[in-house]
């Protein structure tokens, strides 16, 4: 399969000016200014194949948005090579942007004061979409996102969830083979999130649309992406399948017991002294959590021994969440490879 995005040794540095202290400093700033060079994206390389859905994650200020802006041709790279859809995004901007769709979660690309359908109509003209193609494709998009009733309302009267669905539809008017989503689910409720995820999966299957997604909501990534690229301080610290990341990091499971009568730490430790278990009290003295290795014999052994003696009302086996994994990675600052 061909690469739809190819990035080699990409770099972006900004000059950032700092102000001197006090009034005297302010006067000096009028003539000469101090600046430091800040590297937002530092020598990254990766490639994405047609039809992939890739999650692009990182803390605030890790360089996600900057790299997306370079990939979409908004910013010029300081150094390095980018080829997207076979073009150099910045050099051939007008031709290039016809082949991509972009959604910025925090900025609207619809016209604020006019009805949604007028924005769609304008975008249709801008992208030169023929009538038949528009009718067929957009009918599908509008139905799936369920935005039919919103079309004649001005954008300023829509709720965030309604607006976001319209934004997504607007980005897909020309049915681009590549879609960039910069925090598309920011501030949305669960139902809208689910709808958007389902929709993204669908267009990925139906049209083979390649999707690059940045988000702080890892459940989005879990639901959609098989591969993640993780950035920290402008560098890629992990690039690979999400599954592998989980396997290498999520050592161990947690078993949560809810007993019908009081239990003590000593009692429980005694019961499970054959296995390596760390007991912790939960929200009340009826709830206890056992952290164990991810090993079947250990898990069933612990459950067997405890339930043989104590009556339980509820039992849950929890896996360490991706969010916790990511947090651990950032705390350690590097990714261990398994």
């Amino acid at each position: 399969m061909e690469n739809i995005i190819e990035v080699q040794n990409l770099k972006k540095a900004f000059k950032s000016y700092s102000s001197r202290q006090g009034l005297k400093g302010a006067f000096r700033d009028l003539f000469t200014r101090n600046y430091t060079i800040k590297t937002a994206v530092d020598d990254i390389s990766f490639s994405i194949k047609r039809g992939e859905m890739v999650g692009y994650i990182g803390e605030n200020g890790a360089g996600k948005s900057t790299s997306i802006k370079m990939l979409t041709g908004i910013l010029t790279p300081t150094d390095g090579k980018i080829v997207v859809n076979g073009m150099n995004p910045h050099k051939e901007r007008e031709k290039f942007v016809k082949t991509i769709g972009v959604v910025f979660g925090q900025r609207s690309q619809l016209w604020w004061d006019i009805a949604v359908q007028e924005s769609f109509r304008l975008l249709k003209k801008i992208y030169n979409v023929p009538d038949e193609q528009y009718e067929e494709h957009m009918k599908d998009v509008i139905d799936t996102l369920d935005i039919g009733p919103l079309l004649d309302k001005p954008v300023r009267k829509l709720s965030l969830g309604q607006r976001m669905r319209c934004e997504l539809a607007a980005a897909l008017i020309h049915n681009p083979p590549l879609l960039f989503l910069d925090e598309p689910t920011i501030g949305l409720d669960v139902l809208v999130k689910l709808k958007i995820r389902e929709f993204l999966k669908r267009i990925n299957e139906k049209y083979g649309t390649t999707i690059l997604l940045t988000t702080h909501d890892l459940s989005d990534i879990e639901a959609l992406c098989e591969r993640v690229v993780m950035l920290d301080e402008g560098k890629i610290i992990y690039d690979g399948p999400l599954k592998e990341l989980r396997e290498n990091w999520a050592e161990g499971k947690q078993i949560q017991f809810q007993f019908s009568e009081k239990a003590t730490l000593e009692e429980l430790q005694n019961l499970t002294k054959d296995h390596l278990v760390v007991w912790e009290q939960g929200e009340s003295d009826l709830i206890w959590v056992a952290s164990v290795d991810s090993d079947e014999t250990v898990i069933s052994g612990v459950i067997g021994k405890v339930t043989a003696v104590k009556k339980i009302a509820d039992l849950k086996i929890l896996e360490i969440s991706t969010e916790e994994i990511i947090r651990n990675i950032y705390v350690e600052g590097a990714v261990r490879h398994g």
Partner: protein
Amino acid sequence: MGKYMEMIRIRFLMMLAYRTNYYSGILIYSINIGAYYFLWSAIYGGKENIQGLSITQMTTYIAVAWMARAFYFNNIDREIAMEIKEGKVAVEMVRPYPYLNMKMMQGLGEGIFRLLFFSVPGMVIVSLVFPVELSVNLETWVFFFVSILFSFIINTQINLLAGIATFFLFNNDGLIRAKRVVIDLFSGLILPLSFYPMWAQNIMSYLPFQGISYIPSMIFTEGFKGSQVFEALINQAVWSAILIIPVYGLWVLAKRQLVVQGG
């Protein structure tokens, strides 16, 4: 071409979305014209003409200058500044159109809207109240429309320059305000240029501003005659062409140093 027509249409819709602005605009322009009319009647004080313009010509000059302003005037400088400050320019950059052309078309949409729904009814009202003399000469009207089209182009190019300057200055409200005063003063909107002292007139003849208001108003009031009209139109055309160079140059520089604010 289709996308530009569509953009003009969208601007129409946006103007309609803000009806109050539209009504208050008519009122403000009428008050302005009225104020200048009374001011000039006091200055003339029974004199037949000053600097070759009669009081009727003067009133017509003022009325036409303001009505033409409704067409060429636009806020795209402030819009561009706002888009840059809020980082919205990122969205504009992922659209497959030349940003500046699209901005110009938005200005044109606004201008045509105001010309049709603002200047024309406004002019009817004004000519009922004040002694305004409208030309019956078809040629004059044709020259006038050609001339305000150039006014629009020159004024919009200057606005683009002021707007793009935000890329370098980040906050250029002061520049935009100064530019507006300079245009009102040097374009002959407030005072016909022939009233300025000779040395000032000489300087202004080397500047593009007279092409914005003075030339179309003089054509309409038939203050320019014969070959003067053609010279004036050529002057406007030349400035329209010359200004493309700094606009384009500044834009290329701006794109190179674009920093998108926030997020």
